[in-house]
């Protein structure tokens, strides 16, 4: 390949990358904020595996939501609005520690407000919508993505919430919950990628470190930012929305 040709290819590649960045930033709502595994990226076996793993959680979440609505029918619309809120919150641009801006996942805040099982259902619906409305994530990878974003993150966050409640200041536990929920999404996705694509040299662990390194640049600053943001939102809610929080059953906070 001649030198000129090489330069031409280089330009083409750079242009393609710039284009994708531009596409990402031109629409604040369409930026790829979260670590969703792309449609078709997982081999069939793993895609099916994560669907099967996620299924019991979906059923459990569905039963919980149905029970909740059976007891308090007026919550039906509130849950719909909560889903819209979690989805739209992920469209909010927040400044990130590295200087660029990023988007929160909203699962930490959602877990505090609505509980992990409700978030599992709402988060999975949000993932379906992201596939259909934003072309992010996908149907074949829905099981894997829902496991990492809507199930493992909220469950870990909820466990932490129960563990820490009353022992440390509320703001600190709110920060930790949002931070850990983000982080566990990141760790779970990394694990899923490493399981599906083990390294030919070092196997699962080498591959895990590789993917963890690739995404650490964006995901760790994002987790910190989201932690701070969630504390700020939560504080503002405590002063501005006492009545609404009470009706949600959060008065003990």
């Amino acid at each position, binding site marked *: 390949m001649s030198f000129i040709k090489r330069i031409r290819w280089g330009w083409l590649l750079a242009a393609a990358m710039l284009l994708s960045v531009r596409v990402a930033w031109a629409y604040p709502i369409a930026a790829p904020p979260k670590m969703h595994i792309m449609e078709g990226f997982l*081999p069939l076996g793993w895609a099916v595996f994560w669907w099967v793993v996620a299924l019991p959680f979906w059923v459990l979440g569905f039963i919980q939501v149905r029970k909740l609505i059976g007891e308090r029918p007026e919550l039906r619309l509130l849950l719909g609005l909560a889903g819209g809120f979690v989805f739209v919150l992920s469209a909010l641009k927040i400044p990130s520690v590295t200087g660029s801006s990023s988007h929160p996942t909203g699962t930490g805040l959602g877990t505090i407000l609505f509980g992990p099982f409700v978030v599992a259902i709402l988060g999975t619906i949000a993932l379906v919508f992201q596939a259909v409305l934003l072309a992010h994530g996908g149907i074949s990878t829905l099981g894997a993505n829902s496991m990492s974003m809507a199930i493992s993150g909220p469950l870990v966050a909820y466990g932490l919430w129960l563990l820490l409640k009353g022992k440390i200041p509320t703001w600190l536990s709110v920060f930790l919950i949002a931070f850990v929920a983000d982080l566990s999404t990141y760790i779970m996705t990394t694990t899923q990628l490493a399981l599906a*694509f083990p390294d030919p040299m070092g196997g699962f662990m080498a591959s895990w470190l590789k993917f963890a390194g690739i995404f650490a640049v964006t995901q760790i600053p994002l987790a910190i930012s989201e932690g701070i943001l969630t504390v700020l939102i939560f504080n503002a809610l405590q002063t501005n929305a006492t009545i609404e929080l009470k009706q949600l059953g959060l008065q003990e906070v």
Partner: protein
Amino acid sequence: MHIIDRYAYNNRIRNVEPAHKASLSLMVLLLCLMLNKPLVGLVAAGWMFLLAVGLAGIPARTFGRVLLAETTFLILTTIGVAFSISTRDPGSITDWAWQLGPFWFSSSPDSLYYGLVLVTRALGCASAMNFLALTTPLVDLVDLFRRWRVPPLLIDLMTVIYRFIFVLLESLDRMYMAQDSRLGYHSYRRGMISAGLLGSRLFIDAYQRSQRLQIALESRGYTSELRTLPSRYKDDRTVLWVSVAVAVSLLLVWAVGNWVIGNWIIV
């Protein structure tokens, strides 16, 4: 998001039965995943592009843009698959290794081939789903889910969430603009405080809207389920015939790649 939604409501096959469009997309998705060959993925992406542009009248640029939405993830992760990093000399496995300090970067024809499979498979699958997203509005999909016996509770949740995404997004845009025009995002600290206020206000907005909607619906006799008339669709089988053609061509491409040229070659 608005772009996808706009074309979903306003394309030439908008009124075609959503089950046909969904089965075409799901079939291509499954075939790409099961056949698992670079050429199959490329042909599938080509088919979906042709159908979206030719049959549905989606501008080529829009289709390309939507397809490129996840390029960053695709590039980064494929690099991760195609290259390995280790502290040992990978000479026993591959000759393509470079040493950099204590680390060895290596690749091999096999991993590069696998990277190619991944990129083409993801492109084929993503273009199949994007075809569905760009030609079928969410209300039609929800209608389809209802016919597939998805529990009414989930259908209701989806309907309400879909509606309020746009309502809340409008609120969010207005509040963001008001804050931004008052220098609410001029520094990291200020931006965080503004975003926190915005998030909490948005929650209150969503909460109060849900209460008002509840009252409005109850006063109209709402007890359990949001009932709407099913949409009527055109009696048009084009998409079904096209699906058969797509399936046959994908299988042919796979068979040719497998038996005539042989497994070792890149296609």
